[in-house]
């Protein structure tokens, strides 16, 4: 990416004004992935001085600021105590420790990257995103909308409850992107099943989720839900894996993730 000007605003409002007053401008998260693009921008806005690096535990929610790095998620004692510790478990295998020290959740979510492991687990956790101008919305809706590229992601919010999560992925090598990733969250008898790196962005497998609502929570039902998820979602082939292989993996990983949260 070619950049003519690089600024570090001191507040989110200042960043928002910069973003909307310069036609060819972009917000930089960690910068690790966006720099590989071929874009030519007049202004790159680095959010590192805007005070969005935090993980806060409130009475009913957990809030994570947009410039929080994957390594901070991985090490967070707060996050280790919720949802079976599934958020640290998910991010601990994202590339090497060096990359996790710079990759931010804001850059990942706002970039809507299909290969993202984090987006998949956050989707399964019913997470909300808070945008500076548009306010709070469900991550699911944010991912579907192509708008908001001139808005700034401030933080994400996850409800604190007794949900248990599981994350599974398949990779060709340890620090490659996932061929496919699956996240399942269970709250009592309700299940969220998200599948990402299809290679498209993570999406909820709603038919499989509906099936699980009335299931007997056994291995047969988990396998059946895996088949339903594999049949309802769209997969594609790329240099990492074929469409058919991803579909097979989806079925198996959904079953395994369901079995894990049924324990």
């Amino acid at each position, binding site marked *: 990416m070619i950049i003519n000007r690089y600024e570090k605003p001191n507040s989110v409002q200042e960043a928002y004004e910069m973003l909307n007053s310069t036609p060819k401008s972009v917000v930089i998260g960690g910068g690790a992935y966006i720099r590989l693009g071929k874009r030519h921008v007049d202004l790159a806005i680095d959010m590192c001085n805007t005070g969005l690096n935090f993980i806060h535990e409130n009475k009913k929610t957990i809030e994570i600021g947009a410039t929080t790095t994957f*390594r901070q998620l991985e090490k967070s004692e707060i996050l280790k105590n919720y949802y079976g510790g599934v958020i640290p478990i998910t991010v601990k295998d994202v590339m090497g420790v060096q990359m996790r020290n710079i990759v931010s959740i804001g850059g990942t979510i706002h970039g809507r990257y299909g290969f993202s492991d984090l987006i998949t687990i956050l989707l399964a956790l019913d997470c909300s995103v808070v945008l500076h101008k548009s306010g709070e919305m469900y991550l699911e809706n944010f991912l579907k909308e192509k708008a908001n590229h001139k808005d700034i992601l401030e933080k994400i919010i996850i409800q604190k409850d007794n949900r248990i999560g599981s994350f599974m992925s398949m990779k060709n090598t340890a620090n490659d992107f996932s061929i496919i990733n699956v996240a399942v969250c269970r709250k009592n008898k309700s299940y969220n099943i998200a599948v990402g790196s299809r290679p498209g962005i993570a999406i909820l497998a709603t038919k499989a989720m509906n099936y699980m609502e009335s299931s007997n929570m056994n291995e047969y039902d988990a396998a059946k839900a895996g088949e339903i998820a594999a049949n309802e979602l769209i997969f594609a082939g790329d240099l990492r894996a074929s469409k058919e292989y991803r579909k097979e993996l989806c079925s198996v990983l959904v079953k395994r993730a369901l079995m894990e949260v049924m324990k």
Partner: protein
Amino acid sequence: MKIDIVINGGQRNIDIEPDEMLLDTLRKIGLVSVKRGCDTGSCGVCTVLFDGYPIPSCSCYAAKAQGHNITTIEGAQKEALEIAQFLVDEGVDQCGYCSPGFALTILGMTRELKDPTEEDIKHYLVGNLCRCSGYVGHLRAIKKFLEMKR
């Protein structure tokens, strides 16, 4: 644009391009221990310590380093030599291209983790690739280095 950075303990004021990566900045001021490898943050040869934490300098904009502390092998020679000796003794230092990155990641690990287990070491070093040797020798060398540090 100009940035002020502390590099290896010394304050520097450096002229950079807005889209310049930290790797290029460090190399152009003569810190050539910082190597260019994959250029996508996957191989670890460009590792530097950013406020004490290992990062891939190929994937970090130089402008981000404004006001921060950067350490390369040139600024950690005593510890790097200790680590290098263990790597040499275990026969894993062959072409040597990956060694500065390995040494800085190991250094970052010793500062971040109090008493790393074998699993901790393997996990921490996933982002450092070596194409000369396998990683068993590295693991032996690191364990011996940590033992010596205790």
